[in-house]
């Protein structure tokens, strides 16, 4: 093969595939072999679809040779989180209840990437029912961080992030109801995007793996440029999803490479500041300096009712999820892990009036963010407030930073979600990308946020930062 296809990105490989310099079959075989070799160490995939992947790659090769090139994802190996329905392929949602469920349809996002000619390698591991940020799964095992297998890969889309970071695929599609794409992307040192609410159809996402009000389909890729290419393929209204937006789909790559000088960026301050470790703070300060060096203006900002966000998020998500689980709670309660079951039962005790109050308060919070984003164009903050915890720490229920040992969860949810949830509540697009490494050698993430449907701006700034700092060039040391 003419290039190091394992180290290359989608934007580098796509022109080579189009010009027939690379064979989709060879590329797919390369990634499958690597996945089979490394998956026993990482547990990123729950299902590998080798036979189908090779058949799809052969078809892509035939089409490209007949000059029927479909676009930049044609022949590109990718993976899908196991809560997105895949026709003919087991879709477990990380649960025991759906262990043997084989859908007879594809989720819209899956259908769109397949139609673009991408090659599905398999389904990735996730937190049980997407209800957590560790991907320590009692039924399908723990996903390990490719940078150090003693550490968590994050979650709930932990398998997707580990697969991309370890070069077991070039991109993955996940879901994000509280943090679930950005958290594992941050912990694994890759790019994770939660687009604007409604930008991507949620049709085919397993019910009960993300609340109606706060869930989003998201993307995990190695670079910002790749992220824009994949979003281009899956974005747009879907009549099958009444919550998908009618917003026009712009060229998401249009701003990439353009100057960002003069843009105003708010450094968001709020309730999460109490849970930000010194080394995370330092890396965000360096990121601010980098943005300043690109000519951007930065200032500290907040919103008046930011403190309401954990209550709004927890109330809406827990209640909506519990409603989705009601049939299983009545018939298969013993097939949940105890922790998940207890969480849903506690949610059943929330009064309906409280749910409505949360949705009313959400409007206030959203309006305030819209006002703030008239004053500054973008917001930045850490993706996670502290360095990646070990698997052992998470199993023991705590995280440790700055000499403090803190319970990993309280009634607001996992501490690692605190910087992410404002954008699930508001639906604003948010991207996480690597902004350095902790003393333990694990990646740290910077979150950049824009106004609704401003993904092109998000990509423009994220790309400028990515190319300036070049953190994305660092790769985990895994067997070749």
């Amino acid at each position, binding site marked *: 093969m003419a290039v190091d296809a394992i180290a290359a990105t989608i934007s580098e490989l796509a022109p080579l595939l189009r010009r027939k310099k690379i064979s989709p079959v060879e590329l797919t075989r390369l990634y499958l072999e690597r996945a089979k070799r490394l998956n026993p160490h990482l547990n990123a995939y729950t299902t590998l679809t080798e036979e189908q992947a090779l058949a799809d790659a052969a078809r892509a090769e035939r089409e490209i040779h007949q000059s029927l090139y479909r676009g930049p994802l044609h022949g590109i190996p990718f993976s899908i989180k196991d809560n997105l329905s895949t026709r003919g392929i087991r879709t477990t949602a990380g649960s025991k209840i759906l262990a043997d469920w084989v859908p007879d349809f594809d989720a819209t996002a899956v259908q769109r990437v397949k139609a673009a000619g991408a090659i599905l390698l398999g389904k990735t591991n996730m937190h049980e029912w997407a209800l957590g940020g560790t991907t320590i799964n009692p039924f399908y095992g723990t996903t390990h961080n490719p940078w150090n297998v003693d550490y968590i890969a994050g979650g709930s889309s932990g398998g997707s992030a580990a697969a991309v970071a370890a070069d077991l695929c070039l991109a993955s599609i996940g879901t994000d109801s509280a943090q679930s794409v950005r958290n594992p992307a941050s912990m694994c040192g890759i790019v994770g995007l939660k687009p604007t609410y409604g930008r991507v159809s949620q049709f085919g996402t397993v019910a009960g793996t993300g609340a109606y009000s706060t869930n989003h389909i998201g993307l995990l890729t190695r670079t910002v440029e790749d992220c824009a290419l994949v979003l281009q393929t899956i974005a747009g209204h879907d009549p099958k999803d009444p919550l998908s937006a*009618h917003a026009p789909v712009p060229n998401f790559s249009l701003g990439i490479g353009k100057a960002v000088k003069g843009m105003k960026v708010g450094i968001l301050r709020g309730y999460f500041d109490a849970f930000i470790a010194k080394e995370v703070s330092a890396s965000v300060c360096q990121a601010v300096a980098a943005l300043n060096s690109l000519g951007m203006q930065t200032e500290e900002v907040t919103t008046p009712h930011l403190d309401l966000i954990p209550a709004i998020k927890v*109330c809406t998500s827990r209640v909506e999820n519990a409603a989705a689980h009601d049939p299983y709670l009545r018939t298969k309660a013993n097939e949940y892990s105890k922790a998940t079951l207890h969480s849903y039962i506690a949610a059943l005790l929330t009064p309906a009036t409280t749910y409505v*109050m949360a949705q009313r*308060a*959400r409007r206030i919070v959203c309006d305030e963010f819209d006002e703030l984003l008239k004053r500054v164009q973008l917001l930045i903050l850490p993706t996670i407030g502290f360095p990646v915890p070990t698997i052992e720490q998470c199993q023991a229920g705590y995280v440790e930073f700055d000499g403090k040992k803190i319970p990993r969860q*309280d009634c607001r949810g996992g501490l690692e979600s605190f910087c992410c949830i404002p954008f699930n509540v508001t639906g604003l697009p948010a991207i996480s990308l690597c902004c350095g490494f902790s003393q333990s050698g694990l990646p740290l993430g910077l979150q950049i946020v824009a106004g609704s449907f401003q993904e092109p701006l998000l990509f423009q700034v994220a790309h400028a930062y990515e190319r300036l700092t070049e953190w994305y060039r660092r790769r985990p040391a895994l067997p070749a």
Partner: protein
Amino acid sequence: MEEQLRKLNREYAFNLSEAEIQAITRRAEEFERLFSCLYEVDLSDTTPLLKLDKRP
């Protein structure tokens, strides 16, 4: 809260142990305290946001 939970336990046939009932009750009470801030905001003229359907 505990009585409500016991009723749910019967209705859904969860077969929760006494220790589980106590643990879930404590968690539900923590949620209740967390949600109390939603009742301290003036929401008199605010309608619920049930669909984020913003257009650029």
